[in-house]
């Protein structure tokens, strides 16, 4: 099966046969393709992103600090980060479980399940949002069910976490699946022939092997969830200090035409995003090395 979030083969790119870079290149079109790629990325990505940086540096430091460290904004960072974190952890378990059963077991309906792993990815976030909002409300069956147990999901962080679990799920599954698929049965057979139980084999041999991939998937899910907007705002209720996520802060500042404030908060979030990208890069590189 083709898995989408297969991390980039960084090290294979790095280890490519050293072609002549000094003189002319043998295959045609490098200049043209490179030029267009750089141009396009600059126009669509780099220049627009730089507006955040430029805006931020255009604000006086006190105003900047005031904007990004107001209690409400700080609460929103905390909420976004912690919710993403909990969701990523849950997805680690659910995603790993799903990847494992889908790859190694046979049961009816498996292929359908496999296809539907991608639903959270293919479904617009707004639709997910209204779905969860309705599911949580006391009017709906699940909402009533949970209320029986005293669990309230609407307008709470728990509700946000549940939505983020939905969003991050495919990232974990699709990153771990190919690695599970490529496990050599001989390794397990060797372990068994040496006397290990199933559980020991899993704990000492299989899981450590799968861990780097799992970490990559979790990091992807985490990075994605920090900035998630559409699926969350319907259920969160947007109660200040309780269920306001960081992207919403940006939105509300925009609504008030406080562009500077919006840019300031966005700047902090962008820093987090870049940190995530760096982390992701590092984890992926570790994964590549681990699977030599």
């Amino acid at each position, binding site marked *: 099966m083709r898995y989408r979030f297969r991390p980039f083969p960084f090290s294979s790119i790095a280890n490519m046969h*050293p*072609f*002549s870079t*000094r*003189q*002319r290149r*043998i295959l045609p079109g490098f200049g043209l393709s490179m030029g267009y790629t750089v141009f396009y990325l600059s126009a669509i990505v780099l220049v627009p992103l730089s507006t955040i940086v430029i805006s931020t540096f255009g604000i006086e430091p006190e105003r900047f600090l005031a904007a990004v460290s107001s209690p409400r904004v700080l609460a929103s960072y905390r909420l976004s980060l912690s919710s993403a974190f909990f969701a990523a952890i849950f997805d680690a378990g659910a995603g790993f479980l799903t990847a494992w059963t889908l790859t190694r077991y046979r049961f009816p309906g498996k292929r359908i399940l496999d296809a539907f792993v991608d639903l959270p990815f293919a479904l617009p976030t707004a639709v997910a949002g209204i779905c969860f909002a309705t599911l949580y409300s006391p009017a709906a069956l699940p909402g009533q069910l949970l209320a029986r147990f005293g669990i309230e999901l609407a307008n709470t962080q728990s509700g946000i976490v549940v939505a983020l679990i939905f969003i991050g799920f495919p990232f974990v599954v699709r990153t771990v699946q190919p690695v599970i698929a490529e496990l050599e049965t001989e390794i397990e057979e060797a372990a068994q022939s040496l006397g290990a139980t199933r559980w020991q084999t899993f704990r000492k041999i299989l899981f450590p092997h799968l861990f780097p991939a799992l970490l990559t998937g979790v990091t992807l899910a985490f990075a994605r969830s920090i900035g998630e907007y559409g699926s969350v705002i319907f259920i969160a209720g947007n109660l200040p200090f309780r269920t306001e996520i960081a992207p919403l802060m940006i939105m509300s500042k925009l609504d008030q035409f406080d562009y500077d404030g919006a840019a300031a908060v966005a700047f902090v979030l962008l820093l987090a995003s870049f940190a995530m990208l760096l982390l992701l890069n590092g984890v992926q590189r570790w994964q590549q090395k681990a699977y030599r």
Partner: protein
Amino acid sequence: MSIEIRNVTKRFPGYTALDNISLSVATGELVALLGPSGCGKTTLLRIIAGLETADTGSIILENRDTTHLPARSKNIGFVFQHYALFRRLNVFDNVAFGLTVKPASERPSKQEIRDRVMHLLKLVQMDWAAKRYPSQLSGGQRQRIALARALAVNPKVLLLDEPFSALDAKVRLELRRWLRKLHDEIHVTSIFVTHDQEEALELADRIVVINKGKIEQQGTPQEVYDHPANAFVYNFLGNVNVFHGRVKNGKVVLGQPQPEAHRKLNGHEEKTGQAFIRPHDIGISRIRNGNDHPGIIRDIRLSGSQITLELESAGFDTPIEAEISRETWRNLELTKGDQVFITLDKVKVFAGDFEI
């Protein structure tokens, strides 16, 4: 078309692939570039083809300096190690490719293309596969198509990059013989790269032995095998016994008594040296003969047509490997533990410190 390679150097970050290499190939010759992995032979081939560029030096094809000519204008046929057939085109279209991409003024008519392609497919005995796709063919079949494809545009030079190394042993042998026959028919100047000395010895008109970016020796297979220029060539071109000893007064001292060194060395000082002898040049008999060394058979290995004996002899620091025919083995009725006499006639000596 004759090829001349002048002073070609190519460096990659961290190592030098080719170090001031100069080489001539006559029209119609079949030359083998032979050497261990990483010695630069493939790099040289690709530079001739225009798939890499040299740092310095020039490539002259029939008196025309083609060093800076782009690969597509060189009219060179190239056969890749992993065939590089166009997976989306069928066999016919693969072979016809070079003809179909010619500029309109040079392009032959559809009928002419068809004739030529079918002719080539017949030549490589694959005419039945014209509509098939590469994925439906075996490795040997694919390589033959790759060859037909390269020949379709009437190249003046044919370059082959380890053409058989991806194939099974048996297919390799078949294709080797078949390539030789093909070359005898077509006589296009050809250079092929290999790390298999057997292949080079069997196929080539001339062998160029390359090591670490330098040419160690060039010559006919006979020359290179029987008169290796140095320890590296000797060792690379066949099985060999290596004995360490001391060279003194033109003689090498090892074991007892001393075998006569076959190359008189200059100088009379004692130097450390290495003596080389091929396993099949060692004579075994039950009767002592002059300079023979006594030895005990420690192991007998029956590998196909030859018998390999592992012998221990006083004064020799390593076991001696000798190859004898089955007939000799049967005649002498040799078994493990027997004492025999070893004749070391054709010993080659290289003085000084050599590394293999």
